[in-house]
């Protein structure tokens, strides 16, 4: 199988004020693969994934060294607009965060803010995004009801649909199942497996079974450092580093 590199981190250091949260991270993310980032709480995995669509910029008093490339271009380059990057690199968060609007408005929001005016096109994209997010059959009769009436798992799939509507190239999932029950989690996992046919996916999780089930590549972070990265199968069956082995066998974390 041939792996094109979609995103790349080069010598990334990241600081919250004086505190260093990431140390010299070098990592490749392959196109149309699922890359899982695992590690104990506070290891920097969420911090790292938020760099990939420049969400870190919403937090004041942080600084970044090194480069993050998307199709070979530095996303923090001077000419590059964060808004454009976030359109190409979508993100789904830990807690489902639908807007207090209707289901339809939630999905069409991204299209509106990106200047799409054509009502027919919007409708078409809303429907296809909901279909891709495996939510359409659940809600096709109540598109105009409040999104807050949906269950947690449905809300999370709605948030995925909201991302898909703007046709990103990369999808970032920041512990997307942390607040969901096992059945909803199963559905989200199935969905991610399906979505990787079309999108490059990065998922942060501290559920190791989840990483093992759905990812092609796994990166293990510890205390702000990338300890080991490789094919998921290799990481889980034959880790090279002692610390990785300790973590995946449950000796800490």
């Amino acid at each position, binding site marked *: 199988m041939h792996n094109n590199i979609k995103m790349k981190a080069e010598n990334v250091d990241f600081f919250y004020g004086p505190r260093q949260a990431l140390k010299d991270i070098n990592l490749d993310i392959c196109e149309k693969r699922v890359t899982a980032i695992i590690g104990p709480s506070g290891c920097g995995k969420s911090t790292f994934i938020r760099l990939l669509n420049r*969400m870190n910029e*919403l937090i004041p008093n942080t600084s970044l060294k090194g480069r993050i490339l998307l199709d070979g271009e530095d996303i923090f380059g001077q000419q590059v607009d964060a*808004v454009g990057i*976030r359109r190409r690199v979508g993100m789904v968060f830990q807690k489902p965060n639908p807007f207090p*609007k209707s289901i339809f408005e939630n999905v069409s929001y*991204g299209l*509106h*803010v990106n200047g799409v005016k054509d009502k027919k096109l919007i409708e078409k994209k809303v429907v296809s995004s909901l279909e891709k997010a495996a939510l359409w059959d659940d809600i096709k009769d109540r598109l105009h009801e409040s999104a807050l009436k949906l269950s947690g798992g449905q809300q999370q799939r709605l948030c995925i649909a*909201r991302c898909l509507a*703007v046709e990103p190239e990369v999808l970032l999932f920041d512990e997307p199942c942390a607040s969901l029950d096992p059945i909803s989690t199963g559905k989200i996992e199935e969905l991610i497996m399906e979505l990787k046919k079309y999108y490059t996916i990065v998922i942060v999780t501290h559920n190791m079974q989840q990483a093992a089930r759905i990812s092609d590549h796994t990166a293990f972070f510890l205390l702000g450092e990338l300890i080991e990265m490789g094919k998921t199968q290799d990481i889980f069956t034959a880790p090279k580093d002692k610390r990785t082995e300790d973590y995946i066998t449950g000796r800490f974390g």
Partner: protein
Amino acid sequence: MARIKEKAYEWVFTALAFSSLIFLVGIVIVLFKEGFPIFKAVKAGDFLFGRFWYPTYEPPEFGIFPLILASFWVTLGALLVCVPLGVGSALYLNEMASFRQRSVLKPMVEILASIPSVVYGFFGMMIVAPVLQDLLHIPTGLCAFSASLVLGIMATPTVCSIAEDALSYVPKSFREASFAVGANRWQTLTKVVIPAAGSGISTAIILGMSRAVGETMTVLMVAGGSAVIPKSIFDPVRPMTSAIAAEMGEAPMGSMHYHSLFAIALILFLITFAFNIAAEIISRRFRIKLGHSG
């Protein structure tokens, strides 16, 4: 002994907690009791919509329409000042200001709220009115317009701090979700944050309105005091509050004039009461909408 002491504490605090209820009921009873006799002499419709307020003439006329209109115009004018100023500063404080700017500006806004109304009135009388008189070439600076201006500035801190609270209740996750699909800051603000905080902002505006309607000292000093139906915003006016304050001393106890002032007070109370109820209902809906309980 200890148990008796504990019981005593409980009783004291229960009494304190219920005292405000007793005051409220007492005030309402007095307002109705003292206000109602006027409606034996004047029909309610004539009282509310009568065009002439000549309570000391012979025969007297008790039409409070000029006073109601005065309150209405002054409050509306104040809203035109305090809504943009208050909501605008709330948006700035919550969305744009750096931590340091915020830590300076926010206490400033709160200090503005703590200035006594007589100081605002004095300021309006000595500075705003003469300046406006010269600037706009109007017969007197003590008029509805200057009262609106001063009242508006007075109500700004109320609007600002409640609107700011509403904005800060909007979860960070809404903003993140908006940015994550490629919205810019302005779109996030206008399409997500403000609609989500909308009912909280409405509450702020209603409470600002309630503050402006009920304010007495400032309008007494700045609005000019003439109890006729205003023809323009530059006419002197006498809002309901200043009518009560100015005439209470000269109305003989038990006279129709006396009762009519109580009736005005009753109407004023009902108006602010309605505003506060509306604000409460809207803010409760707002909290439910954002998923905060209670």
